[in-house]
């Protein structure tokens, strides 16, 4: 009799542990989804501001074209090309705002201060959002690699999470002015 009780207790304990781990994974996947949505929003915002600046006529024609091209490519990139396209936008932004004079010139144009401010915010938040996303991905991967999770297929059909890798270095001229700190 006691053996049966012990077996039942053990089974209940295992079931509880599995249910708890599944809940934990579920939460981690939800966290990745939220982080990914936030990252998408920030990337889109950055590309929009860049495109706006490119078409506003406040930059010289060559810079406008470079910026427009890369912003457009970043916005319309296929999912598997996205990391490359967004990295190229970062490079284009760095090239265009290489000279601190450029930012000063844009500011002088009507509505320029707001546009530069918005761009500064966007280039600051992209690395933040990306770091939070990749942190969530790492946490989920650590749990999913666990033996119990693999044996009992606790992750279900959720795809194995992938980090978002890109060059997100902001143009120094933009961050230095706000005194923004290193990320």
């Amino acid at each position: 009799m006691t053996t049966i009780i012990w077996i039942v207790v053990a089974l209940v304990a295992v079931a509880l542990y599995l249910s708890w781990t599944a809940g934990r994974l579920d939460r981690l996947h939800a966290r990745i989804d939220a982080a990914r949505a936030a990252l998408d929003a920030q990337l889109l915002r950055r590309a929009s501001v860049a495109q706006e600046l490119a078409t506003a006529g406040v930059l010289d024609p060559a810079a406008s074209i470079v910026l427009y091209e890369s912003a457009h490519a970043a916005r319309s990139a296929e999912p598997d090309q996205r990391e490359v396209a967004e990295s190229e936008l970062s490079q284009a932004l760095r090239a265009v705002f290489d000279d601190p004079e450029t930012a000063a010139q844009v500011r002088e144009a009507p509505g320029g201060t707001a546009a530069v401010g918005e761009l500064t915010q966007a280039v600051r938040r992209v690395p933040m959002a990306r770091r939070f996303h990749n942190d969530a991905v790492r946490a989920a991967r650590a749990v999913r690699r666990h033996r119990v999770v693999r044996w009992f297929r606790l992750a279900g059909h959720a795809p194995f999470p992938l980090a978002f890798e890109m060059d997100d270095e902001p143009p120094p001229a933009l961050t230095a002015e706000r005194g923004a700190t290193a990320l």
Partner: protein
Amino acid sequence: MKIGIVCPYSWDVPGGVQFHIRDLAEHLIRLGHEVSVLAPADDAPPKPGGLGGAPTLPPYVVSAGRAVPVPYNGSVARLNFGFLSAARVRRWLHEGRFDVIHIHEPASPSLGLLSCWAAQGPIVATFHTSNPRSRAMIAAYPILQPALEKISARIAVSEYARRTLVEHLGGDAVVIPNGVDVEFFARAEPRKQWQGGTIGFIGRIDEPRKGLPVLMRALPRILEERPETRLLVAGRGDTEEAVEGLPAAVRERVEFLGMVSDDDKARLLRSVDLYVAPNTGGESFGIILVEAMSAGAPVLASDLDAFAQVLDQGAAGELFVNEDADELAAAAVRLLADPARRAELRARGSAHVRRFDWSVVGGDILAVYETVTDGAASVATDERTTLRARFGLARD
């Protein structure tokens, strides 16, 4: 935005983390956000007449009960745990309906960890200390990990703190330094009797890690070269013990000011010709250096990782080799004799500290809040952690 902030240490005891949370909460309230701080505090009703009892809490602080002193991590820490605290955390989360909660020191076995367990939704956490990995931490890892992985965004107060965080817990964090009200220090009125060849030191006298003994060893050599120098020491501790072993002539040049108010601290930093931070370790940020630079004091600090970073690798203030009293003395003598270099350091320091002002730091923290609340529901109590919920018995 409705923001809930969790403070792990007693609100009644002054400390760096508490001050940081107070300033952050007040800054956010000024910007029009709704802020509630959950902190351990004595909630015994004040006695009639206002004497004794608990000091009144600011309106935005909610007490989580009295912190219990227990031995933890080599010293006696005042922590909150147990059913009562856990219940209060749940109630606070439930009633607050926050858009985001910001937990400080989530790995300490106190309110931070309890809130991590009890909450779900956008959680931001700031790691202040960079404790070396302890055995307790390794043993607690399986308990800690499920709680810490709920955190959507991690903030480290310095690059150094971030490195230790990554090494110990994995993952990544953004670096946002502690904030300082730069204007408050820059506007303080210098005091005549604290001026004229003075060196300043602020910190606990009897805490060797604050480095006063190193400065005391260097003092005779500084006085040899510049006999008119005076050392002003602000902070609590045994003053007799601090000057033990020093010749009487040297003792005369040391002035103990005891505990000073915030205003006096600012005035002291405004008055001195040189601020020395000889800390020997255990620092993850170095807020005092930022305060000194805000007040326009030239800074000479030991070359701890955290200090070097705050001083921009020596560009905004001078560094000496940690615990090297000879080098400290030589650098201090050189700086005291060179008004042009001091003026240069003042100018560089004042420009450098703008990035630590609350307007910038607060903006960065808000940017983190907004990033994690984008595309996420608000904070709620996590019902999955209770047994009843696991069997589907929890009422909604």
